[in-house]
């Protein structure tokens, strides 16, 4: 799933990988692949994550991981960092999700009464990256679908999600709602439909696997 998501990144892109699963995408990028990773706390050109012993106390990503630089990295303040996001210079962001609606609405920052730490930079990433894809488990721990007709949780941004990578499938958000594009090896279309909380359009013919 993470490997499959990594293929979403085209050469030359500026990409922000959200905290959690998305961060792992970096492990699937080739050393010679031309891409610029951005972190909203003020760095373009993120290098490999370092173990604590080799960490620079002043060099973290937005998730608090101790990262490094590459030749051509740049540091900037938080205003410049989000200027980059809001003005359309961020080609792609990969985010986690609590819920995604069939209209592409994303909820990933608040569970009222349970989890209200604030949205951080998530709203701007979701609303302004040129392309927003979600990496998430297909269902929550209780087995409930995360892909729904409508979000029941407070939204992060409306109509922002283009594609969803889950442990079961690759699903696009289209003007007609969710559309299955690929299935995980060994997972049937029926299982995916059953785990999805909204209508899911199936492709004609064979469904590619990943």
């Amino acid at each position, binding site marked *: 799933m993470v490997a499959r998501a990594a293929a979403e990144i085209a050469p030359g892109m500026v990409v922000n990988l959200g905290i959690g699963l998305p961060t792992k995408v970096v492990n699937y990028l080739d050393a010679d692949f031309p891409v610029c990773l951005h972190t909203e706390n003020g760095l373009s050109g993120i290098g490999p994550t370092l173990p604590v012993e080799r960490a620079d106390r002043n060099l973290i990503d937005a998730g608090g991981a101790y990262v490094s630089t590459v030749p051509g990295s740049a540091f900037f*303040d938080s205003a410049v960092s989000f200027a980059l996001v809001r003005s359309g210079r961020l080609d792609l962001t990969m985010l986690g999700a609590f819920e995604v609606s069939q209209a592409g609405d994303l909820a990933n920052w608040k569970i009222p009464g349970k989890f209200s730490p604030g949205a951080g930079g998530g*709203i701007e990433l979701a609303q302004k990256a040129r392309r927003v894809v979600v990496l998430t488990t297909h269902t929550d721990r209780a087995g409930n679908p995360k892909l729904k007709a409508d979000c029941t949780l407070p939204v992060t941004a409306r109509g922002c999600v283009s594609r969803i990578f889950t442990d079961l499938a690759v699903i696009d958000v289209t003007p007609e709602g969710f559309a299955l594009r690929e299935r995980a090896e060994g997972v049937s279309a029926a299982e995916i439909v059953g785990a999805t909380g909204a209508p899911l359009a199936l492709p004609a013919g064979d469904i590619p696997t990943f």
Partner: protein
Amino acid sequence: MRLPDKTTTLEEAVAGIPDRAVVMVGGFGVPGTPFTLIRELVRQGQRGLTLIKNDANEAGMGVDHLLAAGQVDRLITTHIGLNAHAIAMMNAGEIEVEFCAQGILAERIRAGGAGLAAILTDIAADTELAAHKQRVEVDGKSYVVETALRADVALIHANSADPFGNLDYVATARNFNPLMAMAASRVIVESERLQPFGGLAADDVHTPGPFVDCVVELGDLSKEYAVVRR
């Protein structure tokens, strides 16, 4: 002509902060957090503060000491998820918390520093964060009015400073520091290094001296500045 000298002691710098002050505090996580200035503010005990800070640090670190000491009435922030103590205080109504989208908090502070009244944006327009904010229509589209933030005091952590208050920051310790250093009536800087006049190259200054009021040189750094072992 020569440039004025603004170096002072930690105690004097912080003594200028009154009760009920609005205080901006630099930092995103550990990098850029002015731990020494915060500790002195805890020691002096000013109360009824409004803090403006990206995050609430972690429990037992940085601004959490101010929260724990009951010195803070209100916090304007973007994310406090790494500080369970701050979340508990918020949930118990012991502090009032206003959340802002991160880049919009940065822009509101910058707008304050730039002497603007407000910015107009579509960010968070569909969310509860902007539900009660004024809207304005420009060229047929509706925007949220995000008012400028200014503070009585800004607490800034710099990598190096000269006596006039020219500053530079290092790596991701820059974050909100240069923005807040423009947006307060009294800007207090702790700096890891004090350079002589001319010790910072004029092209590489991140915060120009005219914005700064007090410069305090740090001695050995406390453990709070170090790499966090989780």
